[in-house]
């Protein structure tokens, strides 16, 4: 197991280098000197800040040297300071000489996005697994068909359209849910229970809507997994042994059908992070997606580079965790029988 872990971690290194190459390439897509790319009417684009940027990315040096230096800085997780937001540090907080702490932009945004996505994943799974099971049990019957149709529609709806409709229906017409933001204005003055209620009600729409769109894939996956497992010998054996159908489905089949799900979840991370742009813009949530979009509009290069790299690193870590969980759950991998 340990050997597998080490192997797996080492394997991330070439990937990280690849990621750094691509984000480096993107930065150089902007024709000419990237420091020219800011708004002309943007006062922050003074010659001085441009010079700073040139130094930050060593733009006066040959490309190879630039890349090497960028790699080095990335290794020490130093992504510099934003030039659109008062030189806030891009990644993690810094302390100035007076002991004032300035929080990093990613440091502030990341937990919010992570929380929403994890909650969303929980909801997706808690809906997709039962739906998938039902669909597999009732394969080709009306239950299966209606679940499939529902999923397809969920997958095909433009998320922002559904969001706006639901915001209007639930937030304006019925006033059941808050429309946007993370907290009510009077949040601080609420008692603990009310605070929890307040937070939950603000999170419902931004968490549920992306889950609906993500539901289709996972339900289908569970359904196919279950169907595959139903045809396996051991299930037939179990059935032949006279085990109750209930036991067959929930102890034998489900476990085996759900195993590959772990990998799928790991793979879905970049999509979730990327998908947060639109949802966070609509629902006024200061997460990674909103931060990235703002930075793109402001041409705030240090932040763009920082988010691309951190986002990708997160994906790698997510995949690693998924693989480890898989290895832990599947005895064959644990014993090194299959995979690597």
């Amino acid at each position, binding site marked *: 197991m340990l050997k597998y872990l080490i192997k797996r971690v080492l394997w991330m290194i*070439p*990937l990280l280098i*690849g*990621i750094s*190459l*691509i*984000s480096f390439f*993107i930065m150089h*897509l*902007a024709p000419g000197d990237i420091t020219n*790319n800011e708004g002309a009417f943007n006062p922050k684009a003074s010659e001085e800040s441009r010079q700073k940027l040139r130094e930050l990315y060593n733009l006066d040096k040959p490309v190879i040297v630039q890349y090497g230096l960028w790699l080095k800085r990335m290794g020490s997780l130093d992504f510099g300071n934003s030039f659109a937001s008062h030189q806030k540090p891009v990644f993690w907080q810094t302390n100035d000489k007076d002991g004032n702490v300035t929080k990093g932009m990613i440091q502030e945004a990341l937990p919010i996005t992570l929380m929403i996505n994890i909650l969303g994943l929980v909801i997706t799974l808690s809906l997709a697994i039962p739906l998938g099971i039902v669909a597999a049990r009732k*394969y080709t019957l009306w239950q299966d068909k209606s679940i499939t149709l529902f999923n*397809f*529609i969920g*997958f*095909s*709806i*433009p*998320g*922002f*359209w559904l969001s*706006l*409709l639901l915001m*209007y229906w639930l937030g*304006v017409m019925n006033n059941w849910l808050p429309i946007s933001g993370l907290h009510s204005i009077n949040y601080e003055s609420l008692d603990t229970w009310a605070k929890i209620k307040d937070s939950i009600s603000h999170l419902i729409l931004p968490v549920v809507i992306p889950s609906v769109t993500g539901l289709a894939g996972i339900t289908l996956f569970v359904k*196919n997994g279950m*169907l*595959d497992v139903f*045809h396996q010998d051991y299930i037939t054996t179990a059935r032949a042994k006279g085990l109750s159908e209930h036991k067959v489905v929930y102890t034998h089949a489900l476990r085996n059908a759900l195993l590959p799900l772990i990998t799928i979840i790991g*793979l879905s991370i*970049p*999509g979730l*992070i*990327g*998908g947060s*742009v*639109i949802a966070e*813009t609509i629902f006024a949530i200061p997460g990674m997606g909103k931060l*990235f*979009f703002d930075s*793109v*509009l402001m*041409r705030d290069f240090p932040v*763009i580079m920082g*988010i*691309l790299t951190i*986002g*990708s690193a997160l*994906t*790698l870590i997510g*995949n690693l965790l998924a693989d480890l969980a898989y290895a832990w759950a599947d005895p064959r991998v644990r014993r090194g029988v299959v995979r690597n």
Partner: protein
Amino acid sequence: MVGFIIIVSVFILAMLAPLISPYDPNNIDVKAILLQPSWQHWMGTDGLGRDVLSRMLYGGRISLLVGLVAVGIATAIGIVLGAISGYYRGWVDTLIMRLVDVMLSIPSFFLILAVIAFLTPSIWNIMIVIGLTSWMGVTRLVRAEFLSLSSREFVMASRTLGAKDARLIFTHLLPNSLTPIIVSAVLGVAGAVLMESGLSFLGLGVQAPQASWGNILTDGKEYIQFAWWLSLFPGLAILITVLGYNLLGEGLRDALDPRSNNK
């Protein structure tokens, strides 16, 4: 089958746009701003008095084009890289597969946003960038097909008979792996259509005054509670088209892929 009918009808409508559009999609009528759907304007008019139905028909061409070209690019790259990877194996294979891994770990929507913004949004840039960031699935697919096919008897046989690489690839391997490629391409078009509407929402999609479903929908979102026809019709059009592609993709998979029959 339903999917096929949907897609074919959507295509026919878009192709026939110049013939069946009741109005010029860019014809402004200041006296007919934001009219409700009526016999004159089946889908109402927009904020400049343009006929929404006509804009939907013309916009459909753009949206479908974006989807097709983007997926075309992705599929072409995927086939080439996947074929090289699966046929030659060895270090080329390793290199390509690592590249796939790298691309898969960068949140692709971030990548698309950044690139489009830096290149200035235009319909061509959008198609190219969506294409360049969505070829990884096809590559893996083609590679897997090639790997499994090359151990089959008929491929081994032609190889021993001295068939050239190119001949082998184009006459045996590629045609036999077409099914999954087509299925994934069809599903990919659905994703690309949705992607364009998302980019439009953020103001980085097809640029006005050119109509696409994405930007008609975005125009309408401001007035979603009042001028419901501005967002309902493009929203439905996207939904139905994407649904159609998905159903078509699934249908093709079930019909063409023998492995799915054993369920």
